[in-house]
């Protein structure tokens, strides 16, 4: 390492031709990738913004002052505010049981937790209609007691919980399994209570996985369309979430308003991707610091 040129060489590794492709091949592959991603990801994203602002900023902003749009935003926030904490509690509880204990049927349980991901959103909505709908198993009883679940807010919340069910759990389980239980056992042996151990030992070590799961769960809860569409009944101002409102506006040929609400959801997804990258980056930095 005597000359500057050599040290520069060390920082920017020269790619040996035996284990790298010719420059032309490399450029071609990069071009193919960027074209494919550009056509499928970037162009549709730009189109949303373009369509929303087609008639100017004024027309764009008016779309959010409409009472039905505000009601849809409120309902989306409400459904998420109920589904998210429930799935966080479930995720923590499932991960604790699965990662810290050895018991029979564990692998089956893990597979069952993942199940909602492989069920079509439409089928997810359908199962609640079959259970709680007027013709459903519990329908007559619910009607007799004047409880409305399908075509009402509780159905929307249930469908949202179902489609976001595995997110937090599946982030936490592998992480907590990898961490083992030595630290918790040490804390307990030293006299900490179960709750103290959870709050002071377990939670700090899983906070990034937990946050990651929460971010993904939140995005899906706010954006779910198929499952919610089946149970909602599409009553304007009452049982319409934001994605359903987008559909109604679109089908009424009110494109500016449809794309305006859609742009809000698109912004949410971009924020989600940014937050996801940030969490990945922060947790990897922290891991490096912990392991010198």
């Amino acid at each position, binding site marked *: 390492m005597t000359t500057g040129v050599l040290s520069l060489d060390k920082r920017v590794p020269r790619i040996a031709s035996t284990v790298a492709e010719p420059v032309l091949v490399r450029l071609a592959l990069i071009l193919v*990738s960027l074209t494919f991603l550009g056509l499928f990801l970037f162009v549709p994203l730009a189109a949303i913004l373009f369509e929303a602002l087609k008639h100017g900023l004024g027309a764009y902003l008016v779309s959010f002052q409409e009472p039905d749009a505000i009601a849809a935003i409120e309902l989306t926030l409400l459904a998420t505010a109920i589904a998210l904490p429930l799935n966080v509690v479930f995720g923590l509880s499932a991960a604790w049981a699965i990662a810290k204990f050895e*018991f029979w049927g564990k692998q089956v349980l893990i597979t*069952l937790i993942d199940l909602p991901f492989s069920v*079509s*959103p439409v089928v997810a909505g359908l*199962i609640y209609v079959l259970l709680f709908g007027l013709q459903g198993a519990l329908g007559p009883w619910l009607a007799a007691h004047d409880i409305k679940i399908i075509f009402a807010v509780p159905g929307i919340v249930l469908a949202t919980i179902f489609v976001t069910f595995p997110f937090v759990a599946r982030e936490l389980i592998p992480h907590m399994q990898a961490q083992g239980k030595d630290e918790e056992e040490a804390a307990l042996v030293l006299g900490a209570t179960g709750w103290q151990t959870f709050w002071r030992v377990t939670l700090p070590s899983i906070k990034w996985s937990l946050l990651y799961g929460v971010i993904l769960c939140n995005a899906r809860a706010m*954006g779910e369309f198929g499952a919610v569409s089946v149970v909602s009944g599409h009553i304007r101002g009452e049982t319409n979430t934001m994605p359903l409102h987008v559909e109604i506006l679109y089908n009424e040929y009110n494109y500016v308003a449809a794309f305006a609400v859609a742009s809000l959801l698109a912004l949410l997804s971009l924020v989600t991707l940014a937050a*996801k990258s940030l969490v990945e980056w922060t947790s990897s930095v922290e891991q490096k610091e912990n392991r010198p």
Partner: protein
Amino acid sequence: MSLILKQPTVLPGFGLTLGFTLFYLSLIVLIPLAGLFVKTSALTWDQFWQAVADPRTVASYQLTFGLSFVAALINAFFGVIIAWVLVRYSFPGRKFVDALVDLPFALPTAVAGIALTAVFSVNGWLGQYLEPLGITVAFTPLGVLVALTFIGLPFVVRTVQPVLQDLEKEIEEAAASLGATRWKTITKVIFPEVFPALLTGFTSAFARALGEYGSVVFISGNMPMRTEITPLLIITKLEQYDYAGAAAIAVVMLVASFVLLLIINGLQWWSGRRQVAF
């Protein structure tokens, strides 16, 4: 609880957490899903067969399964290239592109649906250039394929990427020093390492496409026998108050996804890693 527990432990909360997990899982997932099978079992075999095998339903299976398969193939091909480019090459904006790959997971499906329809409609940004070439995308099976390709895009990239990252450069150097050409190294050394992950990603993309609804219904035009996907048919039956018919088709779809879930689990066991994608 000691009956279920395999070994004693000082950690508390096993009964509470496992109990709550099973309770919540049963309440939200297992009991409602079981209800679907109960509803279907009320049908006689003939009624069931009529619901799941009438020409319109069969046409929807052909469209859904066929196009999901083609979309997964497209994603397998481009997904491997994208994963390779993201891991091996550096170019301006690589991190941004890497983060953007997950967009189809994060973007609500209805938003994706209207955006793709706008882009590919006859006077859309891309549609206006395809139309003179005789290619109509919106409201044709090709439109369904575009939507299914969009939503399956991240799966292969995200399963292949970590495998490529963990691949040791020494293996390639060894192959090269033993006289293998670059092409031979890639096909005989790297590809076999990546293949299980590629297959997992392909199957996941296929499974996801089978059940997809939101992004497809806007661009497909929903013509029976031509561009009607199976999830839409379930909703149509439901709107006609044909609950049993809807349940019967849903059972067929559900069994298909269970089989795929088992295959994916098997593949993951084979490739020795859990799926990283969400």
